[in-house]
């Protein structure tokens, strides 16, 4: 995703209550319906524009095309992932790089045990 114009700090400051996801662990995408699930292995609560405390076991669920409609800020901090990913099919594989700046999505379902 191309970089936007916002300072990542500004993006965090603009959030009253939300979740800052630093690292994702496992996840899965249903490419037919577009639904996805990702579990955050490192995430923090954002309260009044500040990261206040770490959150354990948060998982995000949503629908890809739907979630993109709620992108309201895009950071200028685009960087490619440091690891090299590999995509493969039928015994062939290619190295791939992915990268995305800090992105704010205005609404998304966060799962956990506290209802």
């Amino acid at each position, binding site marked *: 995703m191309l970089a936007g114009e916002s300072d990542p700090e500004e993006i965090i400051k603009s959030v009253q209550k939300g979740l800052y996801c630093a690292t994702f662990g496992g996840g*899965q995408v249903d490419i037919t*319906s577009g639904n996805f699930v990702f579990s955050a292995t490192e995430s923090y609560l954002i309260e009044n524009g500040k990261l206040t405390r770490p959150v354990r076991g948060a*998982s995000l*669920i949503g629908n890809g095309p739907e979630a993109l409609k709620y992108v309201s800020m895009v950071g200028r901090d685009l960087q490619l992932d440091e690891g090299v990913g590999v995509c493969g099919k039928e015994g062939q594989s290619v190295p791939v790089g992915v990268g995305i700046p800090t992105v704010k999505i205005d609404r998304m379902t966060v799962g956990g045990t506290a209802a």
Partner: protein
Amino acid sequence: MSDLETIAADAVKRAIAAGATDAECTIMEGEEFSAAVRMREIESLKEAGSRAAGIRVLVGKNGGSSYTSDLTPEGIATMVHGAMDLAKITSDDPFAGLPDESDLGSRKEDLELYDDAIEKMETDWKIAQAKRAEEVAFSTDERIQNSEGASFDSYVGRRVFVNSRGFSGSYRTSSCGLSVSPVAKQNGSMERDYWYTSARAASKLESPDEVGRRAAERAVRRLNPRKIPTQKAAILFEPRTARSLLGDLFDAVNGGAIYRHASFLAGKLGEKIASESLTVIDDPTLPGLFGSSPFDDEGVICRRTVVIDKGVLNSYLLNSYSARKLGLKTTGNASRGVTGNAGVGPGNFFIEARERSPESILKAMRTGLYVTELIGGDTNTVTGDYSSGAAGLWIENGELAYPVSEITIAGNMKQMFLDVEIGSDLEFRGSIASPSLLIREMTISGQ
């Protein structure tokens, strides 16, 4: 004794001659076939044969492993030397060793693991099965216009194991399976589901018509899903999704996790950890199933183990190494490919069926979620924390009312298995099997 057993025995002999105190050799060979069709056309046909030998040597308490696909005497000699060289540089492990001789053995009864009808199946017939399943999916409902394809797979193989304590054994296995994934579409909503059948004997497969129809019905009933609010609710897992919960439970009774203190069930032997209605068995001696075998992957005779007995944790599942670490006896659950130290794997690991049909459980629960698909699950075996993305059907007035998606379900396994109700519909589609499971309260995150 088969030729492969002679080769394995030779490998063990060479290792002992080269100075190993103990050695064990596994040889696997197999032929696999796969036919994939999509939108009525053949997409791929694959046939592959494989053969490999692996050896593990012990020089005192130092182990080394190596493997090869070259089963000539030269290839075996190179493999043995490779393992011996590695044993010189690995560190001491006081728990390393082969199983006790008294544990070694092989079941004498016919476990029905091999069906020669599978070897004789014609390629055209296999392709026709896949095409038929997809065709039936299309004709079941007009909203099925697209498909991720159907496939027919088959496998025949042999596993051989010989060790330096006098064990030598071999058994043949076969399997075949048919699956189809139709895509349903209506008013911009697009959903996919699948159904499959697999068995060790050709005659045990469900018909392509049955597979196609069930897959189509499952895809169609997911169309136009609703979102539901975040809440606590009862959740009924159908056998296909209940299996995954049981897979998590297997990880928690796996001897490897127990001796590392990495399971919420470590140190809980003899304690009540689940509802009295829950009995969990590992039984590799049931004929014709995927988790059955006459001996485990280190030559220990297979046997039935009651893992959870009416809610009380009765046994972990162990290979000889984890048993030694814990001061217990192996349960005959060693599992590995051809090489390396054995891990722990399930035989037929299942929850014993109870009396109530899933329909009557559904009626009695009145409201809740019927889970038909889990995605992106993440279970913490150390704490028992469970969470997963889910899709399914919402239950109202004891009946399936409408599809729901974009939700996560969460709970803790310690609590979930205390508050569970078990259905009557146990069926084996793999080595881990469960009837429908009702968990009385879990957290659903939605809108």
